């Protein structure tokens, strides 16, 4: 155990701080809106030039090319959080596709996609779930038939976050209909603008707030070259699992920041003339959440240490998603309770607190409990892969 920063890292922290002071954008620039996308691209490119984003990605692929260093990552996150600015972009491309390409992509795929993805020039959606295949993802039926050097994709994806604002999708399709369930799937990179793709946005429970959109994506004979496969044909299931692993790792939320925000709210809110922080019941709940937030923060550091030392985290590595998502939901629940009957105000109405942040956060965290593998599926994984409990016996075929 050694959490000393030492002079080299303190210097690095000062460097990050100076950068943020000099360059911190006046207003948030996360929007994927085409008219303002150049702002996002410029801001991400600047971060890459200074090494605060795409830091460990090789320069040949558009990254900064630094050696992985846990402490630098921690410092960057701390300083960006402190400044209230997002580091890089929390999106499916950088967090899921890029690590997958680094692990399984061809040289051509890496050179072509990693740089533009990290710079926000190319936005990705994840096309996994289908109406009939969610938790049982391997049962998916969207197919890709061979046609000369190409594939023709037909079928339907659903719950595709951000597809309406994306340029590309990484999609799981069945390329080998004869093979068994898991062996017949391939991982394809598909331009969302391809002829034959129709994206239909779905309204979510968050309603008007937030940029999180849900979509259905219909494929009718969508043509992509066979070179769009990542890894080998029929290995899509394995590849998808690396992607999911990255998704679950990247769900390491800033619980501490949310807790600070919740504490601020409790200081400000009062009912019957009493500040809610003065209520022993609310305060106790806040402290329970703080202990959980601290646990998850340090658990994250422990997991990062494991991955840097290339040690297996074992079962400890499998619990992060389950615990973080529930913690986030529980924090927003306390916030909503603290606001009492005004906790339901929404849509920027009069008297709404924090511009509706807490209801939106609550909806969003509920979504994350389900998305990327539901809590129940997480528990299956934890108990079977983590604890070695026997798998569910397969029912005899009907």
């Amino acid at each position, binding site marked *: *155990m*050694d*959490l*000393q*920063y030492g002079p080299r*890292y303190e210097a690095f922290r000062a460097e990050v701080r100076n950068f943020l002071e000099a360059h911190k954008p006046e207003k948030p620039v996360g929007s994927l809106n085409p008219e303002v996308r150049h702002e996002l691209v410029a801001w991400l490119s600047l971060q890459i030039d200074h090494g605060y984003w795409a830091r460990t990605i090789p320069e040949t692929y558009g990254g900064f090319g630094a050696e992985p260093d*846990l*402490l630098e990552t*921690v410092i960057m996150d701390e300083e960006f959080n402190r400044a209230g600015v997002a580091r890089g972009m929390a999106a499916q491309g950088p967090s899921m596709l890029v690590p997958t390409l680094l692990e399984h992509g061809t040289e051509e795929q890496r050179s072509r996609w990693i740089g533009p993805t990290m710079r926000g020039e190319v936005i990705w959606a994840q096309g996994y779930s289908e109406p009939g295949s969610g938790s049982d993802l391997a049962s998916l039926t969207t197919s890709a038939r061979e046609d000369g050097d190409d594939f023709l994709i037909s079928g339907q994806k659903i719950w595709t976050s951000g597809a309406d604002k994306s340029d590309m999708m990484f999609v799981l399709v069945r390329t080998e209909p004869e093979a068994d369930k898991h062996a017949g799937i391939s991982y394809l990179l598909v331009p969302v603008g391809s002829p034959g793709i129709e994206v239909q946005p779905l309204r979510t429970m968050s309603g008007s707030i937030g940029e999180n959109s849900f979509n259905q994506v219909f494929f009718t004979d969508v043509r992509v070259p066979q070179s769009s496969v990542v890894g080998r044909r029929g290995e899509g299931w394995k590849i998808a699992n690396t992607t999911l692993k990255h998704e679950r790792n990247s769900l390491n939320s800033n619980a501490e920041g949310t807790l600070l925000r919740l*504490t601020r709210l409790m200081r400000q809110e009062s009912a019957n003339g009493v500040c809610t*922080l003065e209520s*022993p019941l609310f*305060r*106790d709940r*806040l*402290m*329970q959440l*703080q*202990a*959980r937030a*601290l*646990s*998850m923060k*340090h*658990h994250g*550091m*422990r997991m*990062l*240490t*494991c991955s840097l*030392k290339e*040690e297996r985290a074992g*079962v*400890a590595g499998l*619990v*992060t998603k*389950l*615990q973080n998502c529930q913690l986030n939901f529980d924090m927003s629940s306390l916030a909503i309770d603290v606001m009492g009957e005004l906790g339901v105000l929404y849509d920027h109405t009069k008297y709404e607190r924090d511009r509706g942040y807490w209801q939106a956060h609550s909806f969003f965290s509920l979504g994350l409990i389900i998305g990327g593998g539901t809590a*129940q599926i*997480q*528990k*299956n994984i*934890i*108990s*079977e892969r*983590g*604890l*070695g*409990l*026997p*798998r*569910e*016996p397969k029912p005899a075929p009907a």
Partner: protein
Amino acid sequence: MDFGLSEEQLLLEKTLRSFLADEVPIGRVRELRDAECPNDVGIWRSLAELGATGILVPESLGGSDLSLLDAALVAQSLGHAVTPAPFLGSAVMVPIAFRALAGSETDGWLRGIAAGEIRFGVAATELFSIREEAGTVLSDGKLNGKAMMAMDSCAADFILLTPDAGRLAVVRGDAPGLEATRLATTDATRCATELLFAEVAPEAVFEGAEAVIERMLDAGRIALAADTLGACESMIEQAVAYAGQRKQFDRLIGSFQAVKHMCAEMIAELEPARSLLWYAAHAFDTMPEEAPLLACHALAHISEIGREISSVATQVHGGIGWTDEQNLHFWFKRISAARHMLGGPAWLRERAASLQGLV
């Protein structure tokens, strides 16, 4: 930067666990529940030979001068094996307090602890909970009054007492005027004692010890949290093993999703709590200003998950889990007795809030 255990720490843990498995198996713990005091001298001596009792004692006094994180790993192993030993008071709280006091007056005691020749009880309950009109008064060099639920004090050689939040007193276990009565509790692996003082002359009194006492309690809380964490760890191991062996409806019960999810939930609570504990112990060693808050949170949180895990792990066993014979109750009761030993979860959380200026 490295957030994890060192090779030496992993080795320490391994050595201790295999020693406890061989020398203090659950059968031995069962025998000791009928003893007058479960804190067996032989176990204490063996722990001393392994270097565990002197883990926080300076090398010049025969100890190994390690960190609180190392001590927490020992506590965790003792909790894992539900070993009866006055480790928390004698090997953690007392050395932390004595080392923080100036002067060499306490050297002899520390040397005795490291050698396994001296066992200390600790009487500090009244600093956070006063019941049954307990309380001790130290005036004109004499102690009078009553201390409740004193730790490991019925057969201790010495007792470290806090007559108030600013003073520490050391009393001989056999001092004239001191009456120690062990109170039966559910937890057969620990000793809780009522101490009655009538004109007892302490061996030593340390004034102005407020900060020392706080630090001693922080260390105790972190080590106690470690003990509970270790006990939880063992209960989960036992539940998972049982689920992989017991059959009902022609299947291993561990293949039922309800049972799997119980196990998953337990481990999902345990692992992040372990990370919190490591950090709290490390903060105690290297970031003293953060330690009081983390000590409160670590103990409160681990006490809470301990209650849940001890119940669920028992349920995984079905009826046999509820029997004396299966032994699970030793862990269950050790966890439940720890819950209020150095401040219950609600009290600790209120303290955590006040440490941050939220009260």
